Each structure stands twice: as structure tokens, then as C-alpha cells.
């Protein structure tokens, strides 16, 4: 194990965040091959039960096993974060890098569009998108991803602008390297750390956005489990079976916590001043 890794694992926030994140990813992967019960199987005789040996987290309003559903729900949450952050990051980096590197007219146009897109916050753009294309978790996550583009674009652009003036870039240019090669080999690797930190901040926000959209009925579609959807269903039964709400809620909180801690830790560790 390298020295950097050892230092990282001694960082409490990072280690805690990493453990939580890995646990959630592990659960998601595991749920693909194994859940204690079929997360879609209904058993109306056993609806809204509290935790028991047979159902460690109890059952929902159709008697489905909540442990299995919470496990399977991890996939939805991770997918949601991955799609939204992937789009924000992918499009943002291209826009930011192109704008920052080429500059001039292109830069202006790119920045105006990202500024304008920034005016449509995630939930608003997801609302519009689902109204246009029908509700579905993919559509709303694409919309959330687009809402994330500006912040990634600005981060990339700022780094590229700062790096463009640096010696090693000028040297590479003097040596006759092509722009695309310089960008790819020298500039972008140096912008990675702020982008990673931003990704870990955006990821849990996407999970929360999915929950909010599911609450409005526009996120994940039943009967497939997602934590946001479970929480929305659970609130109908809050006064009958409070248990129902506890576990999906805790799952969301833990996932968000995990990614946030990971982001905090990364920020500390990647910050050159904090060694």
C-alpha cells in the first residue's frame, strides 16, 4: 500500500466516507445476485409488519420484504447519481475545456449558455423535462445532469485558464505538440482533483433530487424499488406503521453522508496546502 493511501486511510472523514460508499456499492452489487426475498413479491397477509426474524426491516403496504427492497433500491440511487454526475461532468468538461482553451467567441457563447442553464435549478429542469417527455427516472436524471453542467464547466474552465499560462504548457507548445494532445496529456489531468471533489458533492444531491421527484411522482416508477419512492409510499402509512419510513430514510441519509464525507476527505487530501 502506497504512502498516500496510508495517509488517506488515517483521515477519519475520508475513511468513514469510503467505507460507507463501498458498503452501498457492495449492497447494490450483491442485490443483483442475492436478496433475502424477491423484492417484488407481494404477500397481502403480511402487510405493514414491523421488523421480525423473517423480515428484518418489516414489510410494506403490499407485504413486500423491505430489507430486499432497500438492498435493491441502492442500485437506483447509485444509477441516479452516476447518470446525473456523468452527464454534468462529461458535458461540463468538454464545454469548459473547449471554452477555456480556445477562448474568444466560443468561450463567450459557452459561458452564456452555462450561465443561462444555471438559472434552471435541478428540480425545476427535471419538472420541465418530465412534463415534456413523461416521467421516468432516466429523463429526470438527464435533466438533473444538465443542471449540473454549469458548475463542472466553470471548474474546468478556471483550471484550464490557470494552466494555459504555465511553463510546462508553454514548453509543450514550443515543442510543437498539438493542442488536443496538450489538453489531454497535460492540462486535463491537472484539473481532475477539483472535479472529483465536485462530483462527490453533486452525487448525493442527485440522490436527494431523485427522492424529491419521486415524492412528486416523477422519479423512479413502481413497482421497482427506490429509496425516494419507498419514502413517499411510507409517508402514507406513517401513522399506521412508522417502521416503514425508518429504513429507506436511513438509507438515503447514510448514502448522502457517505458521499459527503468522501468529498470532504478528498478535498482535504487533494489540497496541496493541507499536507
Amino acid at each position: 500500500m502506497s504512502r498516500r493511501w496510508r495517509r488517506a486511510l488515517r483521515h477519519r472523514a475520508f475513511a468513514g466516507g469510503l467505507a460507507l460508499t463501498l458498503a452501498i456499492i457492495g449492497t447494490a452489487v450483491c442485490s443483483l445476485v442475492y436478496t433475502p426475498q424477491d423484492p417484488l413479491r407481494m404477500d397481502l397477509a403480511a402487510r405493514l409488519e414491523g421488523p421480525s426474524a423473517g423480515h428484518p426491516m418489516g414489510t410494506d403496504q403490499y407485504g413486500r420484504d423491505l430489507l430486499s427492497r432497500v438492498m435493491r433500491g441502492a442500485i437506483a440511487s447509485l444509477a441516479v447519481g452516476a447518470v446525473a454526475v456523468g452527464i454534468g461532468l462529461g458535458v461540463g468538461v468538454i464545454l469548459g475545456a473547449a471554452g477555456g482553451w480556445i477562448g474568444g467567441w466560443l468561450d463567450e457563447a459557452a459561458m452564456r449558455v452555462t450561465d443561462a442553464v444555471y438559472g434552471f435549478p435541478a428540480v425545476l429542469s427535471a419538472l420541465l423535462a418530465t412534463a415534456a417527455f413523461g416521467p421516468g427516472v432516466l429523463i429526470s436524471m438527464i435533466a438533473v445532469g444538465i443542471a449540473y453542467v454549469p458548475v463542472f464547466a466553470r471548474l474546468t474552465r478556471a483550471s484550464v485558464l490557470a494552466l494555459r499560462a504555465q511553463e510546462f504548457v508553454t514548453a509543450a507548445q514550443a515543442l510543437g505538440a498539438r493542442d488536443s494532445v496538450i489538453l489531454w496529456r497535460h492540462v486535463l489531468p491537472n484539473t481532475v482533483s477539483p472535479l472529483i471533489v465536485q462530483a462527490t458533492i453533486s452525487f448525493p444531491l442527485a440522490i436527494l433530487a431523485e427522492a424529491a421527484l419521486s415524492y412528486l411522482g416523477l422519479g423512479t416508477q413502481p413497482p421497482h424499488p427506490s429509496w425516494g419512492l419507498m419514502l413517499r409510499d411510507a409517508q402514507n402509512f406513517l401513522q399506521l406503521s412508522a417502521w416503514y419510513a425508518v429504513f429507506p430514510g436511513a438509507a438515503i441519509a447514510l448514502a448522502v453522508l457517505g458521499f459527503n464525507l468522501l468529498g470532504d476527505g478528498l478535498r482535504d487530501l487533494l489540497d496541496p496546502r493541507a499536507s
Partner: protein
Amino acid sequence: MTRSPRFGWLLGTALLVVGLGPGAPGLVGPPPAAAQAPQLAVQITAEPPGLDLTATPASATATVVFYNIQEALVKVDAQGRLVPWLAERWHTTDNLNYTFFLKKGVRFHGGRELTADDVKFVLDRARNPETKHPNARHYEDIATIHVRDPHTVTIALKQNNAMFLHNLARQGSVIYPREAVDQLKAHPIGTGPFMLDRWDRGDRVILKRNPDYHVKGLPKLDRVTFRFIPDTNAALAALQAGDIDVMAFGLGPESVEVVRRAPNLQVILGETTSDVILALNNSKKPFSDVRVRRAITHAIDKAEVVKGAMFGLGRVLGSNVDPLNPYFVDMSKAVPYDPARAKQLLTEAGYPNGLEAVLKVTPQYPYTVRTGEVLVGQLEKVGVRVKLEQMEWGQWLDRIYKNADYDMTIIGHAEAWDAGNYANPKYYYRYDSARFQEVYAASERTLEEKKRRELYAQLQKIMADEAPVVWLYVYPRLVAAKKGVQGIWKDLPNPSLDLSEVGWAK
């Protein structure tokens, strides 16, 4: 008729109704002695898209306006009977010429007396194609309207129409003063027990007492506030916290127990005419094959659906004629739950390995989502793999209702007497059955009670046989109210919320 009075619809039988006279219930109500401030705050889930009953069939508009602000010549009462209302009686000798005698001394809100000219104006306008009345077809059999004197009007029909009086009792047939026709959408005027005080867009509609109401002693309330609260949990919390007095339509079946347990609340459970169906697109493969449609009906355990989606509340249904209808025949056993038979039928139809379909539901109506979830599990067992998709109400109307762009969908049809939809091949079921259309047309022209009943029995049999859709259950009437609120209709034979007799216990 040996049915309980609740089912005693007497419509289509004009002669019987004529004999009833002004049988308005509650005419001799107790003197209004309200210790509590006689106000009522009512939750409704959706905001009316305008208050003009002659422009929108939206149930939210009917809830606020129908029977409260505006009334019609004839009324469907709490027991589902057709009773004289603004017309105190009528008579006909040939079932073609109906003469209506208006009740005297009925005044529009803050204004003049209702006269026969208003009736003529309203009905002429409704049947004029320029008006774009949403249900102009209800008036298309009217030939002429003749005003005899200020309180007498004769309507001549082109042909017999068994639904004529019933159509005059519908929400689209309310009488308003002819000079106020332009303000129907924002500030309707009528003869009802309440008049519009204020409509705060997006928040509430407030009605105040009509001091000149033509039924003495009514209304019992001074003020009614309809608040638009779409979220059922928010509404329930508001009821529990005492912010509102009545949840008129928004109570979810799962919350009935919670309300029952609360010492200061009551639940009112009753019947409605709202048939919840699994609609199948009859113009699309594989649902164009009656064997597939019957297979799907066999595959569904309706009792289990009611248990799973409605917490056991709601009556299992077998055709589109609901139990509040006088011609109701119980067809719920006609195509029983039988998964083996379902599989066999699917194999015969050429789908031995089952089939795939998309089921669209709308979160605007949570029961559609829940029912869908239960159905997905049941259909899976016979090899029908269903993908559930939620869509917004606006889109549902556009894609499914208007363009029939769907495989399967779930929705409740609230209208009473809506079997005619199955005789219309352009309706979104796209059900085109010559046999059904013929019998339905006959039923419309037949006035003789016994024959009409036979025709309706036939209609129900054809529906069950041809299974154009799967009739699942009748949506129950679920009202939650504070204890002390009295006079709310138990059953809902039409989409209204009559508050004229509602008041507080002393």
C-alpha cells in the same frame, strides 16, 4: 322494486316522478341553532379549472358549483332518486312534449326571479354548437323550447329519449340568469344555497350563505371554504390539526383506520358511481383478440386487488353498470378468477409464452398506481409481463384519452349512466361491437320500464362476454370529517358535494 331505497332510481320513468311533487328532503329542517360558528372548511384535491359548468366537465368544478351555487330543473337526491327541483312538477302525455312548471319565488343570487325565459336561454345555448358545451349531445334530441308564461315552459323532443329527464339533472344543465352568461367561468350566479364570495386562485374558493334561498331553513352554514390540498397526507394532517373540517374526496383507503381511531373524527363510507377499470386498447394487438381480453380478466383476482390496493374498501365489479344503477346486474362472477383458464386462452390465441404490455397509470390518482402495482404481480403469474409507467394527468388526457396511444391503463369513470361510451368505437377503448351498439341504441329509445331493464341486462351480459375492458371495482365514497359535522351525503350518485343541508351538531 324490492331493493333498498338507496338503489331506487326512478329515472326514465317520468310518470312515476310526476306524482312525487316537491319532495325536497329536509323541507322541515330543525331551526338553525348553531352554537358553533356555522362555517365549514372542506378539502378538495384539485382546483377547478374554471367555475363554468357549461364549459368543463371537471369533477372539481362540479364539487364546488353543482347544487351549491347553481341548480337544475331536476335533481338527483342523496338516494339517487330523480326529484323535482327548480321545476316543481312536469308532465307529458306522449313522452315527446314535456311541460315544466317552475317553482315560484326562486331568486338568483341578489337579484331577480327565475323565469321560463332563463330556462329557454340556457337550454338553447347548451344545444347551440357555437357554445362548445362539453356535453351538447345531451340536448341534441330537443326540437323546440316554447315559453308559455313566466313559470311554464314546454320542451318538444325530436324522438323518444329515455335519458331526457336525467340529462336535465346533470351538472351541465344548471340554470343561470341570461344576463350573467359571460361571468360563468370566474363568478357564476345561480339559485343555489350559497353564492360565490371569493376565489383565491391556487388556494381556495369561499362561498357565503344565500339569504333568499328558495328552500326555507337552508342552508345551515354561513360560510363554506373549499381549500385545494392535493397531497393526501397534508390534508389528513390539516384535518387532525383542526385546520379543515372535511376531507371530501381525498381520504386514502389506508388512512380510514387512522381517522376511525381519532376520537374527534368520523369516517363516512358509501357507494359511488365511479367504476375503476383496466382499460385495454381494443384496436391494438393482442387486445383486439377477445380471447386475450378474457384471459386477462381470468388472470385478475379482483378481491385481492381491492384488498391490496384499496385496503378492502370497494366493491368488485363485472360490467360498467354500477350498483347504484337501478338496472344493475351482478356480473362480477361472469368471468371469474381462473389463472389456468387464462393460460389456456392465451395459448389458444397464439401466445403460449405469454406476452408483454405497458400499463400506464397517473400519480394524480394514487389508486391507479396502487392498483397497477397489484395487477403487475397477478398478470405475471399467467405470463403477461407488464411494465408499469406513471404519467402526468395532462399527458394521460392527451396521449391516452384523446389519441388512444396505449396498451393498458387504469382509471375510474365517475359518471353515472356511462355505458354509452362502449357504444362509441372512437372512445379510447376503441371497442367496436355491432352487437353492443345495436342493443344500446335500442335501450336509449325504449321507455317501457320492463323492456328497458331487459335491454340493460343484455348490455351487461355482452360487456362481460366480450370483455372490452376489465372492470375492477367501484371506488368507495370515503369522507373524513370532524365529529359534529352532519348532513353529508353517504352515497354519491352523481359527482357533486351538496352542502345545503350540512351543518354542525349542537
